[in-house]
């Protein structure tokens, strides 16, 4: 049996305590290694997808559009244009003679049909190769239709998901600054990097509302073009999901001087700290008092409920493999709160700083891994005798085939896992899988 780990990937795996911290990351995936990563297009698509009143047209052959049709649990309180999958479905002749005409006709047709507030046009692998002038077509349609039509430079092969996040932020930034900012409160924020999976941003907004903070724009969960256009009027950018939207926050900071704070809404500690961070920023004693009251209220509801789950889960071992590292930090803490031990943690697109931070907050012996694959994950789950894996759809069968419990913490999830109530849902999800009677029927591991 060959080792599960490719020589070329050895430096992307760190075992805490065995050597001083060092990890290689942010590099192209190894050919043939069955990376769990997607592509640039995927990065752009996930960030922009929840903007519900925009048209999202994928310019390319059908695959890229069809695999991203209504797959995220990103909810909208109003229009649901984002749930449709639009494509130019390029054919051989378009590839030979160019797809600009088809793109133009498709845009006009769809804008007339749906009257969106803006259109995002995603470039796919071959669009970059056949040389379609996306910018020119978008500019022409924007002029004719009187709405912003924004090219997203998301050719799949031009980097990894992180490059896609940046392309998405670049596209959104073209909207910023075009809306009216009068009447925005001095205690105002934009929420960046929450995608309203299972209605999470609604919970978060409710907390801010109780604190007396106005939310100008959701970026991008339950997002609206009009809100993004005026988001430069907010006093503070509150950024979750470090990878996805930080680039936009930095651009807002450079151009409009909007300060940035980083937060996470997962787990009790991080959720509470996120609210305190915002309250401290506004330096308003009354707001701080309201925030304390809010946290106290929520915890008094939550903690007794959590105890029930904790009793069963204490001492169990968890592994985490997620897209962005920010989520991993919070999950490590959330598991600790449940009395569980994290023995492996990894992400598709973490940075040096991310992994450094993970190394600081995890226990000795924890495996930290960048851009992993099924072979490695399988070997880590076995080696560490893991009780539950947290990941997405692609990781689920890896766990199940090994007789390991699973918690879906990816974009497809239907359970809200953010916020205080989300912590309870998370505990319930973990408990429901780890404590299931089905494991007793699974053949015993050799």
């Amino acid at each position, binding site marked *: 049996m*060959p080792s599960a780990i*490719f020589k070329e990937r050895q430096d992307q795996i760190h075992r805490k305590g065995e050597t001083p911290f060092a990890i290689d990351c942010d590099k*192209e*995936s*190894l*050919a*043939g*290694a*069955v*990376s*769990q990563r*997607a*592509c*640039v*297009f*995927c990065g752009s698509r996930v960030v922009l997808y929840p903007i519900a009143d925009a048209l999202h047209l994928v310019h*390319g*052959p*059908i*695959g*890229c*559009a*069809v*695999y991203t*049709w209504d*797959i995220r649990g990103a909810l909208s309180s109003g229009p649901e244009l984002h749930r449709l*999958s*639009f494509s*130019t*479905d390029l*054919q*051989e002749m378009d*590839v030979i003679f160019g797809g600009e005409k*088809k793109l133009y*006709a*498709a845009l006009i*047709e*769809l804008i007339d049909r749906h009257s969106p507030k803006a259109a995002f046009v995603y470039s796919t*692998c*071959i669009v*970059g*190769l*056949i040389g379609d002038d996306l910018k020119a077509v978008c500019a022409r349609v924007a002029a004719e239709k009187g709405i912003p039509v924004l090219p997203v430079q998301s050719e*799949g*092969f*031009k980097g990894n998901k992180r490059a896609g996040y940046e392309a998405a932020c670049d596209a959104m930034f073209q909207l910023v600054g075009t809306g009216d900012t009068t009447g925005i409160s001095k205690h105002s924020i934009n929420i960046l990097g929450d995608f309203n999976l299972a209605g999470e941003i609604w919970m978060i907004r409710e907390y801010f509302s109780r604190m007396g903070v106005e939310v100008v724009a959701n970026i991008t969960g339950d997002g609206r073009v009009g809100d993004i256009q005026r988001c430069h009027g907010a006093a503070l950018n509150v950024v979750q999901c470090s990878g996805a939207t930080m680039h936009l926050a930095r651009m807002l900071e450079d151009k409009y001087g909007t300060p940035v704070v980083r937060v996470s809404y997962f787990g009790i500690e991080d959720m509470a700290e996120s609210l305190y961070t915002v309250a401290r920023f506004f330096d308003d004693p009354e707001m701080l008092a309201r925030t304390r009251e809010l946290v106290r209220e929520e915890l008094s509801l939550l903690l007794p409920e959590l105890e029930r789950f904790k009793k069963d889960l204490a001492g169990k071992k968890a592994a985490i493999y997620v897209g962005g590292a920010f989520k991993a930090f919070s999950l490590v803490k959330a598991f600790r709160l449940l009395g569980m031990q994290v023995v492996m943690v990894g992400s598709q697109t973490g940075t040096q700083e991310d992994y450094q931070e993970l190394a600081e907050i995890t226990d000795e012996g924890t495996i930290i891994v960048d851009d992993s694959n*099924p072979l490695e994950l*399988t070997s880590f789950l076995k080696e560490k005798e893991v009780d539950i894996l947290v990941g*997405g*759809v*692609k990781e*689920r*069968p890896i766990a199940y*085939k090994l*007789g390991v419990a699973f918690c879906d913490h990816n974009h497809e999830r239907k359970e809200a896992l953010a916020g205080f109530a989300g912590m309870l849902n998370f505990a319930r999800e973990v408990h429901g899988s780890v404590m299931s009677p089905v494991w007793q029927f*699974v*053949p*015993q*591991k*050799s």
Partner: protein
Amino acid sequence: MSKMPPRANYTSTTNACKLCKPLGACLAFRGVAGSVSFLHGSQGCATYMRRYIISHFNEPIDIASSALGEKDAVYGGGRNLKQGLTNVSAKYQPKLIGIATTCLTETIGDDVKMILSEYRRDYNGDGELPVLVAVSTPSYSGSHMEGFHAAVRGLVEALSEGGPRNGTLNILPGLVSPADLRHLKSILAAFGLNGTILPDISDTLDGPALADCPLIPEGGTTIEAIKGMGRADATIEFGLTLPDDTGGPYLKARCKVANHRLPMPVGIRASDRFFTLLAELSGQPIPQALQASKGRLIDALVDGHKYLAGKTAVLYGEEDLVVGMAGFLAEIGVRPVLCASGGQSGRFKAAIDEVLAGLPGESPEVFEGMDFYEIAERAEALKPDLIVGHSKGYSLARKLGIPLIRVGFPIHDRIGGQRILHLGYEGAQQLFDLITNELIRAKQDNSPVGYSYM
């Protein structure tokens, strides 16, 4: 014959009713024993397709990728392809690697045949080089079904050898469920036939819980068996909309294996045709057990027919599955009013006409190259009683407030898509019970009375 309404002439595609070509090839390669599917292209393609396939089968499927970056797109993907093959070989120790190209590598003009022959020439790895089978599957020409058939053809082209007959029968079933494949095997066994089914995903995409999970699951059509397909007595291909150049015609032209194209054996008449052919080929009568299940099926049809009388259905999905389902629905008294597919074989209408011949009712509207926007437009006008297709029609069924009968691939909103049985009398029995009960349920749920006895 009904008059077909004029077709709306849309440029854009909304909610496509097809998948991309390499996905079909990856599924087909997964049905070969000891194989790994490999996409030559950008990393995203492999990951998206894995997610899509996993969400249906709830099984692991490792699709490797040459993971091309920007430099490779400029200078060619040969280096990555070779490195990827070496890496897959080293870790998975596969017997075969099924390579499908993507839009990216087709457009930059990578000569995969040449790259592979260089790779074979220069190979000096440990042990034997896995069999490398490559197919050209740019997503801009054809749907996932063309990719599936191309992979099957690629496999027999690469492996099957002529020679003295070996007394076996080849079955090229197309994209059917693991449950269908298991059923086909038991049917062949009942006829005493020694068959090779290609591909065979019955175990590789519906495996048991195991104490130790192998990197490549057990099962699939063995390379030996594929080699022997050139010496079989006959090939049966399911599908009336297949292109001319599939595996069956290749085996016939190259290895003189008689080829029989049948409609997918869904429903009574198509199953009859299949079983009659098996009886001919085996020299055995149709086995008693099959006759008994047909008897029970017909009895059930009689019991349930009043619930179905006058009902109409909209069907969509892969052309050959729609053809099969249309024939079956017409047999049980549910009139297909729209048959739609994202595929564009050019043979869909003729195939539908063929399976509906001799059954009462007007011909349905039949459209190739349709997306769900158009299907919904027509469905709203046609006001069907039920919808038959994969899970992507759910929003339409919900909007119309009518049942969705889930068949085919993908089933992303229910568990057990791999266990849906479509083929033979047994498949017809299960579908019949499902359809009838869904219509009864709809009537029951929609009634203010709350009948508890239907």
